């Protein structure tokens, strides 16, 4: 069974008095296996962010369902949703979303504190993650004292520390310079090789080329997808780039 299954997902935004309806997701179905690193690509307004918000249980779909580990997320009661989110999902955001009032260590601890873990458990979990991400020496610093790349690595640590089933990343390289982007993407690859499932939304071809599989969304539907297989990265990059060109020039209009 797939780790994440999305079936016939639909989302329609209605303006306040119901005059105007905008369809963000028309009919999206796909599945993610455990250990996969999937990138979702699409232009602005294609419905990527809506999709990610629904997967993150921050938004409810108008139709269809999402199953994580066989559990239908639509059936989780409101009260248990926050706990579900922090135990099963890890988030990495474009703008890091670190809290200014905490140093990096406390930022990383945040989901565990909310879950009520004792301090020694948090400390022992942090140690290997911080080492992998190379932020062991930065833990006592505050977000305003470190670079963007370092902030994003702290955010990744925060996503990983709960040992989530899946990490959802929303344009994680969007606010980073190219060197920091490369480092972060390598880290994603590394984490993925250790068995972590990752779902990343991006419109950077370079970022997508680090994934095992790339899905393209257009007009609220999964339009096309390609697998990397054993191809080298530069070749995969070319394939993604070609696919985007085809989509952008309208060659693939159904």
């Amino acid at each position, binding site marked *: 069974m797939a780790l994440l299954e999305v079936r016939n997902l639909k989302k329609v935004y209605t303006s306040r008095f119901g005059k105007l309806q905008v369809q963000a997701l028309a009919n999206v179905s796909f599945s993610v296996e455990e250990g996969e690193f999937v990138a979702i690509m699409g232009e602005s307004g294609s419905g990527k962010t809506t999709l990610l918000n629904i997967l993150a249980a921050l938004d409810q779909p108008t139709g269809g369902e999402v199953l994580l580990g066989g559990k239908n997320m639509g059936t989780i009661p409101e009260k248990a949703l*926050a*706990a579900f989110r922090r*135990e099963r999902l890890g*988030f990495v955001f474009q703008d890091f979303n*670190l809290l*200014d009032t905490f140093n990096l260590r406390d930022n990383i*601890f945040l989901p565990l504190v909310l*879950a009520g873990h004792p301090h020694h458990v948090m400390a022992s979990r942090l140690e290997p993650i911080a080492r992998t991400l190379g932020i062991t020496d930065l833990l006592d610093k*505050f977000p305003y004292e470190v670079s963007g790349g370092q902030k994003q690595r702290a955010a990744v640590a925060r996503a990983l520390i709960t040992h989530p089933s899946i990490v959802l990343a929303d344009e994680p390289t969007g606010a980073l310079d190219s060197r920091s982007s490369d480092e972060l993407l390598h880290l994603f690859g590394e984490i993925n090789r250790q068995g972590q499932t990752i779902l990343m939304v991006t419109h950077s071809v370079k970022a997508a080329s680090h994934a095992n599989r790339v899905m393209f969304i257009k007009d609220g539907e999964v339009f096309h997808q390609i697998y990397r297989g054993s191809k080298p990265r530069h070749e995969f990059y070319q394939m993604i780039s070609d696919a985007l060109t085809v989509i952008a020039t309208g060659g693939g209009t159904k």
Partner: protein
Amino acid sequence: MSRAFYAKLALTNIRKNAQTYYPYMMAGSAAVMMFYNMLYLRMSGEIGAMHDSMTVRTVLFLGCIVTGFFSFLLLLYINSFLIKRRKKEFGLFNILGMEKKHIARIMLIETALTALVCIGLGILAGILFGKLALLLLLNILGMDASYGFDVPPRAVIMTAVLFGAAFLVNLLYNVFQVHVSKPVELLKGGNVGEKEPRTKWLIAIVGIAALGAGYVMAITVKSPVAALYEFFIAVMLVIIGTYCLFTAGSIAILKTLRRNKRFYYRTNPFIAVSGMIYRMKQNAAGLASICILSTMVIIMLSSTVSLYVGLEDVLRTRYPREIAVMAYHVDDEQIGKLEAAVAEIAEKKGVRPQNPLSLKYVTEVAVHDGQTFIGGRGARYTDKHAALFTFITAEEYNRIEGARAELSEGEALVYVEEGKLPGDALRFDGFSLAVREQLDELGLAKEIALNDLLPNSYVVVTAGEADIVRVRQALYGDGKIGIDYAYMYHFDTAADRETQISLVSALYSNLPVDGYADGREASKRDFLSVYGSLFFLGLFLGALFILGTVLIIYYKQISEGFDDKERFAIMLKVGLDHGEIKRTIRFQVLSVFFLPLAMAVCHIAAAFPVISKLLAIFRMTNVPLYALCTGLTILAFAVCYAAIYALTARTYYKIVR
């Protein structure tokens, strides 16, 4: 761009910022109303008809100054808050192509509109409520009110000018703020990454020391005169201590809490403590101000209320009998003349003195230097070791107290009314009196009204006049000095109020010797006009200060709400649910909210002894009554405070959500 365009834009701006602008306008109107009312009362013709209207007018004048000053500051404070919030808006206008002079023009229209609304509404409300305030004041003073309705134009003009000036200052400040900043900075507004505050141990320690010293001074104060003297120092120390503790002490405590890992790493403390460290950095001064303001409101209200309520008590302490006649520097012959004159005048008024008490005595002030009492003309009343001596002869003592004391020369009976005796003898320079017995009770001490002002006060019974003369010669260092008696004659009349008052004035103007006559009923009017107007002022300023406190807290909560909005949005994404958010918010808001109040209650408790002593100067010695008034005032204030809390917590949560 047309004129109408600016006006329209200004209107839309005000409407868009309703959450902060409407309270501003309401507060402005309320301040205008209160100031106008004060002026109106001061100028109103009806008070002129009152007995002793000067006192009332002086108190009201004081009220005008405080009200005006406080209102002015309050408007400036709120404005500085508003403009900080709106910088982004003006930055956007700037970037969209509006020049700064255009923005200034919009600001001008906005300010003019706001000022018009505030001053107009305020004066209107002032005219409506002015009469009500007047009725309240007259009622408190025990006067009858007429039912006229007047609007003194001078009060209207002065109010309009003062608040017009306040709004003008605000406008200039705002234009200046926009003028000196760059558009990009305006856009960013307040959201600059803030550094974590450092722990300032030195300031924290200074705070603890100042507060401790202030408290000790207030608690250990000995006498009313010393109280008056030390009270201001204590107040200063406590104010300094409060500011230091709120700014540095709070951060030191929070950081210590953060270091305790088992306490800190739990949901509520985790979010609250980390947030508070930043909150304290920005708001410590504000919270300290709220604390001081609350303390002042409560002390002012409780003391004026207890003075007013305890008026009868005060009069009874001040005048144990209805009529008091006092004479200075008299001998037996003059006393005889005086008694005859009093009897004659009383008879003319149809009064027969009842329950009379007469006493001749000698008072001296001396300062104890550790060995002896040094005195005479150099003795200062404010000295800590100053003592008031009231000397009476054994003959007088036996006559009044119905005792049968027999003393030989050089011996004395001593009654200590205040303070302590320095040893078993009263040593003067070159002469000393052995204390044969220390009296536990002395009925006539209550009649001599001056005694409770000095730190030490003794009534000394000597064998005869010769010993008193010896003491005086020792104190003044002059072997030729003789006796100098004061004489008091107190009696009841069983007459009505009017008769008593006319008797007192007849006595006063016909005394054959140096002295004065006074009476309970005659003073009641004077006391009532002083305490009554102070009481009214206390109520009035209390209301004004509560308004100020409410506004400061309201705006504080809103600005913090905006700051916390982002933080809670992030926590929501990371896995905090709405219920938990609500709980942590409540925890955080509650602690910030009630910290100043708790501190204020501490201050009041510490100030209690010194204020009771100060009230003794006003002859208000009923401490349980003062305690009751204080308790009730704190309770009333806490209820107001809780209401504000409920209101602002809701607004805060709405913003954060």
